[in-house]
């Protein structure tokens, strides 16, 4: 039972706004039908009611603009041009993109609407649509409008930045589409972040100006980049100079052989056979001299050529690997796409 009561409460809460939407839409549909049947005097009260502050239901901007447009069109049909212009201006002030279809409206209505456009000055831009743009093959599209001829400057800048990239700086009249290639002033892909499209217009007919802003977030959609190999540290490289102990090791090797030869001759030989020849002394002498020469050579030339070559080879391999990684990363960056989504303002 408690669950049913809760469902009824939710349904009641939803019923209000839905009814309000339906009320305005129904009223607008009835007014439009009367207008189409040229029952202008019956349509006008319905339309006035919608734009009246006393209208009890919610009215969207689009509904209000449509109501004002039909009010202007109805007054134009009734040859009340001044009133028609007032209503058309009200529609244009709320939505500068409003247009009258030349095939559906009479020349008088179009004339009144044109006068309203000349007497009203506003610039606006269409909201940006979320989407993905490949800058190699596509462009980011911006659409702006001026209600009549104006000097327009459109600038794209990072949110909060003072200056940016000028996309348009010329006279414009009506709807205009701009294409942005996704590059910044330096010719590089615009960095990720929040951007502001700032449109500044100065009327050519009247001493007025107007501006519009469009905020959007831009991010890069790219395959992850590879990290380059780190610099080779001491642990990755072989010692290029022999230490003092290595030089001593040369003597140790020579003396070791000498000791082994003498040990074999003196300790392993059978004492009952009165010795084991003089060859051991020869080998011992040669080995000792070799060790001594190796020691001196090591002290005079402590560099280790094979290690130097091996280290150079490792450095070259690392450099080649990093160049390959950088090339792959550049290729991936070149395939970066831009992902755009609308934003509310400079920041949260």
């Amino acid at each position, binding site marked *: 039972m408690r669950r049913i009561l809760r469902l009824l409460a939710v349904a009641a809460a939803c019923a209000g706004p839905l009814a309000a939407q339906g009320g305005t839409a129904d009223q607008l549909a009835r007014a439009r039908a009367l207008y189409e049947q040229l029952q202008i005097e019956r349509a006008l009260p319905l339309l006035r009611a919608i734009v009246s502050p006393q209208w009890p239901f919610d009215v969207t901007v689009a509904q209000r603009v449509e109501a004002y447009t039909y009010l202007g069109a109805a007054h134009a049909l009734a040859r009340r041009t001044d009133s028609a212009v007032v209503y058309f201006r009200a529609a244009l002030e709320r939505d500068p993109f409003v247009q009258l279809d030349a095939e559906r409206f009479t020349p008088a209505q179009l004339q009144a609407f044109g006068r309203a456009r000349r007497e009203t000055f506003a610039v606006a831009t269409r909201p940006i649509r979320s989407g993905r743009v490949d800058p190699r093959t596509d462009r980011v599209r911006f659409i702006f409008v001026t209600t009549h001829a104006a000097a327009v400057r459109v600038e794209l800048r990072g949110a909060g930045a003072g200056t940016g990239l000028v996309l348009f700086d010329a006279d414009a009249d009506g709807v205009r589409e701009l294409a942005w290639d996704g590059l910044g002033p330096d010719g590089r892909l615009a960095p990720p972040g929040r951007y502001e499209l700032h449109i500044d217009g100065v009327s050519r007919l009247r001493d007025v100006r107007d501006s519009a802003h469009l905020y959007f977030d831009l991010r890069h959609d790219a395959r992850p980049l590879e990290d380059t190999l780190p610099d080779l540290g001491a642990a990755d490289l072989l010692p290029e100079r022999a230490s003092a102990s290595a030089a001593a090791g040369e003597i140790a*090797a020579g003396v070791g052989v000498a000791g082994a030869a003498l*040990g074999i001759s003196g300790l392993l030989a*059978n004492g009952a056979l009165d010795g*084991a020849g003089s*060859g051991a002394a020869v080998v011992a002498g040669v080995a000792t001299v*070799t060790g001594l020469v*190796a020691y001196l050579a090591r002290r005079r030339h402590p560099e280790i050529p094979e290690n130097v070559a091996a280290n150079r080879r490792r450095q070259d391999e690392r450099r080649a690997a990093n160049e390959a990684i950088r090339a792959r990363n550049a290729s991936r960056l070149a395939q970066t796409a831009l992902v755009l989504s609308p934003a509310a303002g400079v920041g949260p």
Partner: protein
Amino acid sequence: MTPGRLAALLLAAPCAARAGDAQVLTAAAWVSLAEHRVDAGFGVERSSGVLGGGRVTLGLPPRVELDITATAGTLEPDSANAEQRHVAEVGVDARYRPLSWLWVATGVATRTYSAPIAVQRWTSLRLGAEARVPFFGGRAEALGRLLFLPLVDVTGLEQPELAITAAAGVEYRFGPVGAGLFYSLERFDFPAQDGVARAEQLSALTLRASARVLPFSSP
């Protein structure tokens, strides 16, 4: 170890080589100043001479070496009770390297001493280790070897109580060629027979030259 087992070991040795490593064939030749001493109960008989030899080694990098050696020469008497003897020996050896500087070695050899009154044949199995330590920036290698001969069959003699061979020396390397100087000693102590314990020893100062004949790829 039976001869069959030894043969199996030698045949299996190439399998220990890593596929892709180039096999190396090395040839070596040497000349030795050898001195032979033996005491068979009549005092120390000394003889000496020049022995020449050669060896072909098949290297199966990084861990295996197989080689065949041959040595021959004449020992001239240096003492009154000694006599001239011709020496000839052939041997087959295999080495396995468990550490970068250490080789475990095994091999068989047969040697013949030919004297005017008799021919004596020695057949032996040897087991041991060999250390090779490079120095002088890789231009020289210190070598030490110690092999025990657990099985020695000598014509007319019993198995020796102690049979050992050892060597030490230096080998110099100049790219694919090398030269070395070594001292080696073989000692055989035989059990006493009729109150006489025979002792025999062969020492040599050897000058050896070697060259890498071909590096060729494994199939």
